[in-house]
């Protein structure tokens, strides 16, 4: 494997006294799309919060582009080229659609994404650009959240539960847009409860259960039985 863009070494994470992750190891190559699956409470979101710096870890537990960033603050990590599409969209309610996107682009990193290309990807956002972000449907808000992360032109983008709470037809249109996003070399980690969706867009898959990696492998060769075993811990 060439130099990994992101590697995790024995990553532990805690909420107070509660340990949410136990020694998670992970490596991903540049341009790779990795899916992380697992039941509720398996530690998927915690993993993303640790990578993006919202939770602080030991410096060498998270390595991004050759730098130990485990102890960096989220804004420093964002400046290095890592963006998160948070679970539940989390738009800024007092900002309009366009302002939400502009906030994402304020780091001024070079790359293909700007206001225009995000509007090309999700044309409906162009019509709604002046609306408050709270006036949009859930699916449109998710588009804004994705666009906001893309505006930073990240090298690695993390998607947390992008299909959560959305209608199937919306989920389909968002997943249809994904290849256009990760097609030009951007690496991505997709956290998803919908296993078949996750497998369909990713190169490799990791399964988490109770804070530990219970399965990893190529997305096209992994068997359903192995997944249900790793997912639920039953034979």
């Amino acid at each position, binding site marked *: 494997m060439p130099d990994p863009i992101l590697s995790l070494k024995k990553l532990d994470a805690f909420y107070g006294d509660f340990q949410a992750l136990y020694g998670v190891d992970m490596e991903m190559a540049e341009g790779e799309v990795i899916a992380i699956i697992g039941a509720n409470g398996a530690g998927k979101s915690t993993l993303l919060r640790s990578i*993006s*710096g*919202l939770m602080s870890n030991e410096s060498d537990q998270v390595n991004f582009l050759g730098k130990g960033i485990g102890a960096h*603050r*989220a*804004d420093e990590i*964002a*400046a290095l080229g890592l*963006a*998160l599409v*948070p679970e539940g969209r*989390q738009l*800024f*309610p*007092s*900002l309009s659609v366009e*302002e939400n996107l*502009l*906030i*994402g682009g*304020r*780091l001024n990193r070079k790359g293909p994404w700007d206001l225009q290309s995000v509007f090309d990807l999700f044309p409906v956002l162009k019509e709604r650009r002046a609306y*408050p*972000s*709270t006036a949009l449907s859930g699916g449109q808000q998710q588009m804004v959240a994705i666009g*906001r992360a893309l505006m*930073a032109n990240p090298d690695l983008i993390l998607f947390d539960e992008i299909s959560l709470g959305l209608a199937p037809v919306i989920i389909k249109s968002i997943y249809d847009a994904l290849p256009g996003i990760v097609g030009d070399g951007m690496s991505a980690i997709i956290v998803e409860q919908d296993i078949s969706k996750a497998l369909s867009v990713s190169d490799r898959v990791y399964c988490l259960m109770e804070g530990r990696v219970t399965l990893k492998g190529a997305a096209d060769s992994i068997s359903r039985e192995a997944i249900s075993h790793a997912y639920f811990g039953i034979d």
Partner: protein
Amino acid sequence: MFAAGLSLIFGVMRLVNIAHGDFIVLSAYLGLTVVASTGMHPLLALIIVVPTMAAIGYFLQRGILNQTLGDDILPPLLVTFGLSVILQNLFLAGYSADPQKMDAGALETASVSVAGLSLGILPLLTFGIAIVVIASLQYMFFCTSLGRAFRAVSDNQDIAQLMGLNKRHMFGLAMGIALGVTAIAGILLGIRTSFDPTAGSARLIFGFEAVIIGGLGNLWGTLAGGIILGVAQTIGAKIDPGWQLLSGHIAFLIVLAIRPQGLFPRVSG
């Protein structure tokens, strides 16, 4: 205008600054020192005092207050309360307990006659400056990328961090701007009336009342709140001089009883 600073701090940082009243007095004393040592006109002293207070605000926030901000609102309350005590005693030690006043010459008593009413130039000037300051704060908040960043941090600190905004820096800037505005208020206060080391606490109450009457986080509402308080006090004073302060508080209580969320609460999602 003093209340605008308070409103700004609360709006962006969810921080209740007990020491705010003492910062207004601090800027009045700073103004006094500048005027006394250079002999310049008090209004010109603004050029020095405003940046000084803004710098104090930024470093105060970065150095002390950021450490206290968290899920619990009690630590920042206690720290600003402590700051308030420290500042008051420093004034006492540095400037003595005597009430002081800045001399602005003829400006203080000048007046114009409008439709038979005689209006003081200084109150008019104060009102004008307040409108300009609030309008520019409003512009800054809604039409510039800095304001966009402030609103984002105020909405959701974690997610704003993900956008590469350093919330500590943003809070520092917000506090700097707030104290800059406070400095303008402090100088005008120092020209208008006399002040002493403990004048801050009384100001703080009016400030809070104006903020709450206007609705938390709404700058124009805060201005309206200030006007309502002022008018209520003046009417009270006409009835009986002893009623001046009381009637302001009564107006506040009436508003609170009828509209607990304030007259113009900020629309929030």
